[in-house]
């Protein structure tokens, strides 16, 4: 399994950078930490994933966990949509670091 759900903390503060040991471990295994922050309550869910794992895997796991359809959810990194098919490598993310993705609910209107 490429992505691994390691913990879920209800609204606690997650640091931008993992602790040094953890960062070393992640770097050694060429992985990084991804935190998805839920839109309504700010609940944070952490994933460890490889540099080449497409984000769709994470999103589907996350959606399954919170019992929502991935189709209705949007995931933003610094205001830009994170696409299903892209990978940390394509985003030029660095191994051993931690990144926070905002979850939003898809909007529609008429």
């Amino acid at each position, binding site marked *: 399994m490429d992505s691994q759900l390691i913990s879920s903390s209800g609204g606690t503060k997650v640091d931008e950078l993992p602790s040094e040991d953890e960062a070393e471990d992640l770097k050694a295994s060429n992985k990084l930490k991804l935190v998805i922050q839920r839109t309504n309550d700010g609940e944070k869910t952490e994933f460890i994933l490889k540099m080449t794992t497409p984000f769709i895997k994470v999103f589907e796991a996350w959606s399954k966990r919170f019992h929502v359809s991935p189709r209705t959810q949007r995931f933003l990194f610094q*205001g830009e*949509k994170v696409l299903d*098919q892209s990978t940390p490598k394509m985003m030029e993310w660095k191994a051993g670091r931690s990144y926070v993705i905002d979850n939003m609910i*898809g909007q529609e209107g*008429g």
Partner: protein
Amino acid sequence: MIRVNIIQCAEPSILIVLPSGSTEASALIDAVGAHLRTMNEPIRYIDKFAVAALSSNYPAEYKPDDTRARAAREKERQQHSGKRNGEPSRNRRPSDVLPDIGLTKEAKIRKKEKVDGDPTQSKLNFDSFRRRSHRLSGVPPVEYEMLDNGQPSSHAVPAPVPGLSAAERNELLFPYPFFLRPEINVTKGDRYRVQSNDFLNDTLIEFGLKHLLYGNAANERHSNADRVHLFNSFFFTKIATRKGLVMPKGVWPAYDSVRRWTRNANIFDKELVVVPINESYHWYLAIIYNPKAILKERKTTPLRTEEQEDDSLPAGESETLKQARRHNYHDDTYLDELMMPANDKAIPAGDRLRSDDSIDPLDVIDQTDGDIRASLRGDSESEVEIEAGVSNGVSRMSLDGDPSGELYNADASFDAPPLITDTLTMFRQQDQRSVSVSDGDRSGSPVKKQKLARSDADILDSDQCWIMTFDSLGTAHKAAHTHIDRWLKFEARDKLGKEIDTLSDAQYWEATVPQQPNFSDCGLYLVHYAKQMLDRPEEMLRFIQVRTTRECHLQADLYSAALLCRITSTRNKPTMLS
């Protein structure tokens, strides 16, 4: 107009798209075939269906062959010829016969490379997400080409739309922009939304706006692209949250959540900042014009907003304001009194001259211009005439510098700095047609009531930052102004190190724009407003800065009808959001 698209397939292939009804198709194909033959490239397969489809505008039943179907036909042909030659190929397993048949060794290598090219992608096996080329998934290639007369070319007209299953809805149609790093995925479900006159979603709005900037081709970038900043629709959702509004001065958690959104762009260098807004299942557009103007130093005392209590105002004033908050704000007289400077409070409220219950004699004398304006407006209500006259007279008095006019100036909109509190904003929202106008001299008394006037703004020539909202249901959105104005100030503090209290205020303007005739088109209208603002900002600003008269409303209705024709014809072509 001839486009040659090279589409990545297992085998190298060429797709030639011709205008509808072209008789040159076969001639061109022959020419290309001859050229390929001279290049010693054997033509193994010509897609007869594709040729047929080219001449008949992609009929709905057209399903381009995928490799497997093609291989199956090849196999059939093989077996057929084998039988004829008396050598039935019964020992051959189907997998041996499958796509590799008839391929040269070179092509096989190419194919292997294609499969092995991206190891991460090939491992993907999700039902809900499978990236396919259009050719393989049976979708006619999406063409954006406009004909020379500006009308969308006809070959994109879709057949009646069949329903989509959940998995199909999630299927990727194309990533966009085409020639840059993709930023959004448009899915089949999104296309279905457009085809079935459903509400537009955030992806389609973002696509529509980005399409204005990036266009279809690598070199087709909007000339203003560098002077425009686009936010997506989640930006306003983030900053409009009520969470954490009661915070110490200068702390605003909502800003922190969008602080890094602009890390690569200095929005104060931009001319226009486009903020699409979704509220209660309705789309409307906010545009920040000339954002750098808020960096100018404010000349009067700082803003008093609810979350930014400060002590720079006289104690009596702030006490009055607090009192005002506890009071009924709908009482105009009371609010007027409250907003007067403390030294003017000696005069009873009833004695003061206000536009809506008594008329200054000077203003009546000076009413000629106002009459003209009111009659231009085509509005027979005397209230409007009086109001126009009063505004006009007051502005003249201030020009003449008549000291006796000071008192009335306190009520006049032309000199008053805007006092923006959440409560006042809410109060103003009671009167949707009103607009706040403020420019010119700001050296008057620190707190003045801003008059709700029906007059025109001077957006183009004023040296101020304007936040305009474009709503196809014709509602004012002062709250949007409040949030965006606050965001601009926090942005200036965070990125440029300015003090929030020293920054000028952005002005609000509700643009009167063509209205949607139904309950589903507001997303399209939003994109259209943005397109007009990007394509010809000056003309558009000149148009919207005038309060529309009744005649203008007629024109707007006509324009609306014309736009509707355009949009409905466009609407059937999901990809033509222009």
